[in-house]
């Protein structure tokens, strides 16, 4: 069953309505673990998007050649290849980012977001559509990671992307760069998004306008 959405919605849906983190709660492990600074969130998001795009391209192109019974193993091999590429690339050109992300770059291979998109989308749709879908999902993922990273970095270290913005008067809340801060911030963000998307409120808005 291939998708019948317009190309624009195919792209847009991943950014907000079917956002991998906010709506589907996929890929929470990197979301929670690496967003202690905006830089790390951005790097993680870009690496994941790269893997997502390239594996979508391969899998949608090969979708009729991969036997149904071994498709998961096939997808994982393809994903793992691109994860290795991303991992080695970061280690060679951005050693500091690679060091601060640690094991989470190799762990992209088990990110449900990626395998989920391949299984649910790329294996059933053409190359163009799959790339659009992956790009939307990737941008949605980067968006959440960067927002989380910015909030946590401001409160936890008093800086954005490594530049100090709050003066000496500010005592950083160390909890924000620790795991509890990740859970708290993500929980509050998802609550706000759900409140914003709440159908009953949407009805109110329509009634008013």
């Amino acid at each position, binding site marked *: 069953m291939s*998708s*019948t*959405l*317009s190309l624009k*919605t195919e792209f847009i849906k991943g950014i907000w309505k079917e956002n991998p983190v906010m709506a589907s709660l996929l890929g929470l492990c990197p979301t929670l673990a690496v967003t202690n600074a905006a830089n790390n969130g951005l790097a993680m998001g870009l690496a994941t998007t790269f893997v997502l795009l390239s594996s979508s391209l391969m899998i949608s192109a090969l979708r009729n050649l991969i036997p149904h019974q071994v498709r998961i193993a096939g997808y994982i091999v393809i994903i793992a290849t691109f994860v290795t590429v991303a991992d080695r690339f970061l280690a060679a050109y951005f050693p500091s980012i690679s060091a601060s992300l640690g094991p989470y770059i190799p762990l992209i291979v088990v990110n449900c977001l990626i395998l989920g998109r391949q299984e649910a989308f790329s294996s059933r749709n053409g190359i163009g559509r799959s790339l659009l879908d992956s790009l939307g999902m990737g941008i949605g993922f980067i968006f959440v990671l960067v927002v989380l990273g910015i909030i946590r970095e401001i409160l936890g270290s008093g800086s954005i992307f490594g530049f100090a913005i709050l003066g000496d008067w500010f*005592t950083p*809340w*160390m*909890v*924000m760069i*620790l795991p*509890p801060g990740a859970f*708290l911030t993500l929980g509050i963000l998802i609550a706000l998004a759900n409140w914003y998307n709440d159908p009953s409120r949407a009805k109110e808005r329509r009634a008013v306008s």
Partner: protein
Amino acid sequence: MTEENLSQALPEQPETPKKPVKPKKEPRAKLYKPETPLILASSPHFHTRDTVPRIMWNVIAALVPATVLALVYFQWAAVGIILTSVSSALIAEMLVNRVKGESFTIPDGSALITGLLLALTLPPSFSLDGTALGSVFAIVVGKHFFGGLGYNIFNPALLGRAFLQASFPVPMTTWTWPLTARYVEVDGVTAATPLGLFKFEGVTSELSGLITGNISGSLGETSAIAIAIGGIYLLIRKYADWRIPLSFLMSTFLVSGAFWLISPESYPSPVFQLFSGGLMLGAFFMATDMVTCPVTARGAWIFGAGAGFILVIIRLFGGLPEGVMYSILLMNAFTPLINRYTRPKFFGEVRA
């Protein structure tokens, strides 16, 4: 997917003829609103004079001795922290009420208690903006994120303190001598708490200081006797379940006593354990929080015993000298489970 299909398909459908005039906003049907709302409750239909505000104000009264001693020992530092904590708790409560569109819940006193309890667990040298942050966190996240008073799974004041402990670990463990202490030479000289002294330097403190409170420690936790007076008042008025403090203290005494008997040189005596740190304050005022402790009698015993066990383990083997906060919070998390497994039998019920 279907939704998009519909929204795309819609414009192509034959449009219904436009209505000549805009439909007027229909006045909402007036619902019958009785003067006094009908309150439904399950049995037993006991009548009691206890209301939420009445209980809360009694708890506040019970906290007066500890608060007064905090003011005596730590003077202006205590005044600043207590006022900041209480006022920011009240303001946070008011703002949350406004956002949630509910009636103002300040008069029930619960926010005041949260603010006061949090202040009593802070070190006297703690910063005022940090105090306000902890207080707001306790009210907004600890209480209202879970649905408000009666729905919170964790004690809000302790959650606020845990947040501060994780955010500012150094100021939260920097202690000063009380201004009245005889050891003091310079105002506000830093000092380890008796538990810290024992843990890191192997020095025990005199029992007399632990009982009267003329020692370093958090604002309201130093004097065992002032806390016990307020706590026993609560137990007599039955606003706190006596089983919880009793089992908490007993379990601490027995577990630490067992370690002490094994090796008296390396472990402090159980009496020292009982009277030091925040145990008294925690056992009488925080573990007994009606919302977050088990409702059954057997559950209360389990709750106290578990908290005491965790406390001794943290104090003796953990990285921190004090563990009352974590022991109570952990048992708070177990409370729903304890309630479930200590459910009393129905009359005539045969358990399989």
